[in-house]
């Protein structure tokens, strides 16, 4: 009995020492260090298996998750029908608006926000935590992807690459540790948009005198050391409130991208420079 409990204690102490070593090594943040190499290996092993399992189970998962969403889907269907009838009227004006938009874009030398070199990638899995919003992509450094590149979908900004090896990892816009320089399209006012644990993103540090209308579009400002090129759509303002001291205003922004249904994304390989200015 004595021998057994001594062995258990030795195992515990050895593992605690190993954990302390891992934490210490990780805090050095050495890009070529052992922890970083171990992370690359872990992602290289897990990602292809995720890809395989995902292909088999995704249809089943989609079916089961859609069952739990029947109620909300019915409401959404009603809302979309109402929206569609309004959009029909807008559609008739669309060619005219498009021509005007193109004229204005030509005038200021600004093109569409997805330009420059890009690479498409498939989402093969998510991160293993409920407190961290990340996804894994089936493309990596060999495809020209490197850390801090912007990731977009057809709807708008998705996030930023945080790891690029054989596969890559993306921190989503909704992660609370993710901040992006943003701009209101109406007033041109800039601020910082941050993910939150709720559905809406938080757009802070706005001038309190700024008039913000509900539904106003928010895009990237390009003021974050060039990580996110300017003009990428982020979302729509749902509500605003003044800070307690009245010095700033905060807007809550509903992202355009549905992060629970991401399937294919685009990585902007020229992130860091004005996409259209190249």
């Amino acid at each position, binding site marked *: 009995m004595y021998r057994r409990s001594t062995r258990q204690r030795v*195992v515990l102490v050895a593992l605690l020492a*190993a954990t302390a070593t891992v934490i210490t090594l*990780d805090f050095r943040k050495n890009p070529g260090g052992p922890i970083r190499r*171990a*992370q690359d290996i872990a992602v290289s092993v*897990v990602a292809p298996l995720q890809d395989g399992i995902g292909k088999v189970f995704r249809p089943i998962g989609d079916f089961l998750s859609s069952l739990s969403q029947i109620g909300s889907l019915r409401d959404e269907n009603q809302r979309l029908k109402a929206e569609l009838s309004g959009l029909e009227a807008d559609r008739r004006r669309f060619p005219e608006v498009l021509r005007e938009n193109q004229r204005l874009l030509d005038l200021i030398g600004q093109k569409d926000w997805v330009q420059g070199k890009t690479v498409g990638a498939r989402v093969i899995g998510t*991160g293993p935590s409920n407190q961290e919003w*990340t996804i894994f992509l089936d493309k990596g450094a060999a495809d020209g992807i490197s850390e801090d590149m912007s990731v977009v979908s057809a709807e708008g900004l998705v996030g930023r690459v945080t790891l690029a090896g054989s596969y890559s990892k993306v921190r989503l816009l909704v992660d609370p540790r993710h901040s992006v320089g943003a701009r209101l399209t109406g007033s041109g006012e800039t601020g910082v948009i941050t993910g939150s644990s709720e559905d809406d993103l938080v757009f802070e540090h706005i001038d309190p005198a700024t008039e913000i209308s509900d539904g106003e579009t928010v895009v990237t400002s390009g003021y974050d050391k060039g990580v996110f090129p300017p003009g990428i759509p982020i979302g729509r303002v749902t509500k605003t409130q003044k800070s307690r001291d009245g010095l700033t205003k905060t807007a809550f922004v509903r992202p355009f991208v549905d992060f629970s249904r991401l399937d294919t994304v685009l990585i902007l390989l020229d992130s860091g420079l004005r996409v259209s200015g190249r």
Partner: protein
Amino acid sequence: MRRSLVFLLAMLTAALLQTTVFSQLTLFGVAPDLILVSVICLAMLEGPSTGAVAGFWGGLLRDLLLDSPKGLTGLSYLVVGYAVGTVRPYLQTTSVLVPVAGIFAGSLVGSALFEVLQALLGQQQLPFDHQLRVVGLTAIYNTLLTPFVYPLVKRISGAYKREKVYRW
């Protein structure tokens, strides 16, 4: 050696299912922590040493897939694995409620310990009520998976049981 490989493979499978299938099957937006469930099951069946080793490797695997500081999940899960394995022999009952209660309590302690460690290192940026909700829901979801995971781990553990050596 073969046993250790099988347990490591079980952790890898848990991580894969957690990040693919169960990321689609969330309960109020929360996915279960299959790695932690497997660690607790192994600790209950195999004792504190195996529980701690499984917790360390399972936690480290989870850490390597996260952006947060590495080693925090490893530390949290090894503590839970060791504690569950130590307490289990004192519960002199074969009731099915033992694994259920063990997984619930272990999940609560494991998730909460990870959150505390993150907060101590200044890495926690989510509101306290959100953390509380996630920890509670994860524990409930993990407990609901007991009837599926525990018998499976028990079978694996039984198939690769360590042979007893008697010394004179």
